[in-house]
């Protein structure tokens, strides 16, 4: 019995292509595995194949998932694939396989006693939660040019999940959200659609100069943040539960006022 490992690119396209290729093999799904990116420990007696992302195959898999399992499953799969965990490809692949063996295919995500479905559920929940945290805790700073600029450093690739929220909320603003970990910018010009830009070194090294208004309002908000807490109820444990420390480095109210401001 030969085991096949399909090595896919770490993206939605990559893994969907992998799933397509796995079905092309027409052998038992127990013998095929999908791994993401470079494999660190190669196994003996296993065949490794690299999948090249393919637009047509991706579209075909996406369409099949939506048609057979419904939108709920598709969204969960998309969220799971935005995760930073290595086993996401395998989990999604085996979830699809599980789905085809079920009587009521639309109920796939409810089948939590299946370990693969549960894993997809877990990964999707993590991404969704982190995306929601960013909707809550992301902070814009106004640059001297009037553009709003925010930095984030998420564990999962949540950028594309949060930008639509801000695009709907601030349609008239020019804003940029920068994911430091993945070096991607989301750019939203006033009254237009938003798009992604991959960063380059030159742009990253430029020092950002903030506006005078930025100084004023960040100080006002820090003041508000401190006075609104009730001394008699102080509970730093609860604060830490609700607002994990890793988000605070990006948040205005937890920063000393550093950075340079224009005149």
């Amino acid at each position, binding site marked *: 019995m030969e085991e096949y490992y399909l090595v896919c690119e770490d993206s939605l396209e990559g893994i969907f292509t992998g799933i397509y290729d796995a079905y092309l093999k027409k052998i038992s799904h127990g013998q095929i595995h999908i791994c993401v990116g470079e494999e660190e420990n190669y196994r003996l007696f296993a065949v490794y194949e690299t999948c090249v992302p393919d637009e047509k195959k991706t579209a075909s898999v996406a369409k099949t998932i939506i048609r057979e399992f419904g939108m709920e499953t598709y969204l969960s799969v998309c969220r799971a694939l935005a995760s930073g965990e290595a086993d996401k490809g395998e989990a999604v692949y085996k979830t699809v396989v599980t789905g085809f063996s079920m009587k009521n295919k639309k109920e796939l995500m409810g089948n939590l006693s299946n370990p693969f479905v549960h894993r997809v559920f877990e990964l999707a929940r993590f991404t969704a939660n982190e995306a929601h945290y960013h909707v809550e805790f992301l902070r814009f700073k106004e640059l001297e040019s009037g553009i709003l600029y925010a930095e984030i450093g998420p564990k999962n690739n949540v950028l594309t999940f949060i930008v639509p929220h*801000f695009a709907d909320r601030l349609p008239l603003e020019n804003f940029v959200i920068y994911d430091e970990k993945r070096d991607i910018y989301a750019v939203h010009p006033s009254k237009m659609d938003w798009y992604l830009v991959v960063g380059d070194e030159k742009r990253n090294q430029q020092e950002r100069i903030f506006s005078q208004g930025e100084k004023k309002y960040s100080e006002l908000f820090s*003041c508000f943040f401190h006075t609104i807490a009730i001394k008699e109820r102080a509970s730093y444990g609860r604060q830490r539960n609700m607002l994990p420390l890793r988000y605070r480095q990006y*948040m205005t109210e937890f920063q000393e006022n550093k950075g340079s401001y224009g005149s």
Partner: protein
Amino acid sequence: MESGLTVRKREDKSVMEKLRILSDAAKYDVSCSSSGVGRRGDGTGIGNTLAAGICHSFGADGRCISLLKILFTNECIYDCKYCINRKSNDVPRASFTPDEICELTIQFYRRNYIEGLFLSSGILHSPTYTMELIYEAVYKLRTFYRFQGYIHVKAIPGADPGLVERMGLLADRMSVNLELPTAEGLKQLAPNKHRKSILWPMRQIQQGITQSKNEIMVYKHAPSFVPAGQSTQMIVGATRESDYQIMMVAENLYQKFDLKRVYYSAFISVNEDKDLPALPEGPPLLREHRLYQADWLLRFYGFEAKELLSEKKPNFNVLLDPKADWALGHLEQFPVEINKADYRSILRVPGIGVKSAQRIVRARRNGNLGFDDLKKIGVALKRALYFITCNGKMMYPTKLEENYIARNLIDGKEKLPFDRDGMTYRQLSLFDDVRAAGWKQMNA
């Protein structure tokens, strides 16, 4: 002459000072939620709302910061004994202008600091005059600044009903504070406020909401009136009401006034007054916590107040949460078979919440569930295991006996502020079972 002088003084204050004074004065209001209405932006202004609400930060007290919570002014003609802004207190006073409020809201909002505005106020001159000031600010924010985010305003008891109605068309949520659970309490501590004048705008808002919902059913674009519903708040521990009385009031408000939320606020002693209790142990936070737990049971778990408490047992158990406490009193209804029981019975098991119960009902369609599956689903087995069976078997052989389960449920890890409730640490002796002793004490 004298009034002229105070006006000049007020103008001297910077926005920073005003914000410090007026947010400090507003912080005792509990409500902060930005939930209840989902509305997309229309592309011509700024803002949208999310039905689930968004918290933007958490203060040092662990409370969420969602709205810019400020008073319009902290000058007040009333003299409510529990309130920091009462007439007889000598505190720095300040007032915003409508423009300052709009500017702050918009600038905070576009930086994603806040989800909207929470505007309350002390009573300046008269309720109607105050309400007009608030209306002016909110009107400007909605029309001139085209702000489409969340706005929560206080309806001030005694203000002109016409004004309340116009206000409701601009605000997402309105609230009237009940302040104290009973009319006697109110009479004692808030001599200028009357139960009737508080309930009257509450009723008006309720009728407005119902009417607007009916209109929207017919005309899709009819203006919506207070779309996120109304809420209220009660102070707990300033007067002698029992938990039972408070829960009955809350239940009535939910059923008869269609309230979205009732908030409970542990009394914080900010003024010294002979009519107020001295609370050397700090505010009754544990009691407030139990009330909120019970409030959830009323709203999401299908419980009624009289199931949880009664005249004979008027207060919640300090050591156990209300659901576990109820389950221990109704052991005849347990254990519940996870693979067969209906949703409502599963929901009543301690350790199973709404989400877990929904997931269980869904997941068991694809085959029998075992304890491992329940753990994955998110059930707190530590508490649930005494009350459930999977395929006819309990997780461990356990006795279905009140004292035994209670001893095991009382959780050392749940950080109960014991010292705050008068129970202090004491020397352990060899034959003392502290957990059991505490439980017996509660039952006695």
